[in-house]
């Protein structure tokens, strides 16, 4: 089987389509969460000043914790993505690449 045909078959295969769909589903959901976190923070700062000013102790307030939390969350989300990609996503990618190349040794 020619390489071009194998590539076409792979592109049309349900596994490949599933890979693409799963990747974007995950990415877009993560993006959406990040947007909510950040713009939620902005809205809180714009409209929810009273809530953020609620004190913890003598002078500290919730707003400080929230701000710090957004920074840490942003980083954590990149970590979550890398973990997902390194485990679930890359495994599927490897399977598909092997399939593309394995046929090489079989046919010629």
């Amino acid at each position, binding site marked *: 089987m020619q390489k071009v045909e194998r*590539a076409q078959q*792979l*592109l049309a295969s349900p596994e*490949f389509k599933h*890979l*693409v769909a799963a*990747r*974007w589903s995950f*990415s*877009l959901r*993560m*993006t959406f969460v*990040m947007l909510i*976190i*950040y*713009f939620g*923070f*902005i*809205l809180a*700062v*714009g*409209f929810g*000043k009273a809530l*953020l*000013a609620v*004190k913890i*102790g*003598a*002078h*500290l*307030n919730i*707003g*400080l914790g929230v*701000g*710090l939390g*957004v*920074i*840490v969350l*942003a*980083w954590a*989300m*990149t*970590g979550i*993505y*890398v973990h997902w*990609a*390194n485990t679930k996503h*890359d495994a599927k*990618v490897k399977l*598909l*690449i092997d399939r*593309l190349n394995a046929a090489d040794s079989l046919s010629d």
Partner: protein
Amino acid sequence: MLIILQQLPTSLGSPNLVSIAMFFAFVAVTMYITYWAAKKTKTTSEFYAAGRSITGFQNGLALAGDYMSAASFLGIAGMVAMKGYDGLIYSIGFLVGWPLIMFLIAEPLRNLGKYTFADVVAFRLRQRPVRIASSIGTLFTITFYLIAQMVGAGGLIQTLFGLPYSAAVIIVGAVMIGYVLFGGMLATTWVQIIKAVLLLGGATVLVVLTLSHFSFSPTQLFNAAAAKYSDAVLQPGSFVKNPWDAVSLGLALMLGTAGLPHILMRFYTVPDAKAARQSVFVATGFIGYFYILTFIIGFGAMVLVGQESIAALDKGGNMAALLLAETVGGSAFLGFIAAVAFATILAVVAGLTLSGATAISHDLYVNVIKRGVSDEKGEVKVAKAATISLGVMAIVLGLVFQGQNVAFMVGLAFAIAASANLPSLLLSILWKNLTTQGAVASIVVGTILAIGFIVISPTIMVDVLGYPEAIFPLKNPAIVSIPGSFLTAWVVSLLGREPEARERFEQEKLRSYLGVGAE
């Protein structure tokens, strides 16, 4: 300014031996690296992409270094010192673009491109029009960013060392041209890494020294600040007065980060998409850590130096971090931090210049003029010539804009990156029906809207030109220019048809998702 400095108990403004010595040491080490890199930089792959020899972790540091400019270190620390919590809100905007790069851009960018993001946009479209348009977007972004950096550099060195402004600008320009010309991406990457380590290390020491005055408790520091200046400094202030302003700025920062040419270019220095992912994780971590540091530094300066002293030197508070360094560590430590700030400027302008030179040689010369046929030696020569031209242009612009209020240019650069560069890049990856004309139109319209709306915004009309009111109420054009750009791409693409581009979208998937055939 120098008169005021002489009246204040600070050694800022007079040549500081430690600082000069450290600065020369930095330049010497980085020149040696440039010499080492020059021997390895003969091919285009080496000049543009460091021969893809950079690891994920190293690239993460380099990316963070590229992003943590002197403006953000001094500017954000200053903003926190003068306004408190508002500085944190501002810095968070700069951080959150990175997760978006991770989720949407990093892997397809690395897999589909070779040296620049224009490679990706032009992947399945007609090369010449897209390359020309992407280069325009790149060069506009780079130019505004460069002007802001050069003017900031000149002013900073003049304040720190008492050197005349023009001498400062010329020195920065000359050294920067040296790095890029002889060492290409390999040299600039390692200069960024060294600078990032120095900056993060220096800032960490500054924080530790500062907190030692507060029993190593940030809580105590914040309480002291509130006691000295009122609880308001720990709360959001006037930064988000108009929520639309904040949303517009937030959009520019979030999406602009993903469209900065000198940042995107770094993704090609690592071997594959997996390393690209790791780079973003590492970079985000370091940048987040950096903003936590600048937050503490700002409050430290607020309490230990005092807002009055800081404002006396510079209304915007830009000297806050340096004054704090002197207060907690003496003039030797001040010298170190000042040298690091200088190194930071050098490294960032080098990266910007390399990115511009690459757009000229790889995108315009090879793919437009030479129609895709690359003669390695010729291309590297063009890249070097472009480097010199851009470097000279940067110096000239730095001299021309002396004394001007150019802070808005960074915001403008981000807005152009978000409106011109990002939409076509994202749509090229995601949308089957994007056509050549749609991509080109979105880049052109995005650039025009970004520049046009910022000219009629308070940023220019009120702050620079002095009118009482502006035509466009928001300071940042992003909320108009970004959707405008996406809409243009959509409408223009649907009006035309490009079946070849649609077909190639399917083929492109093998490379984009599996990395098959990636360079």
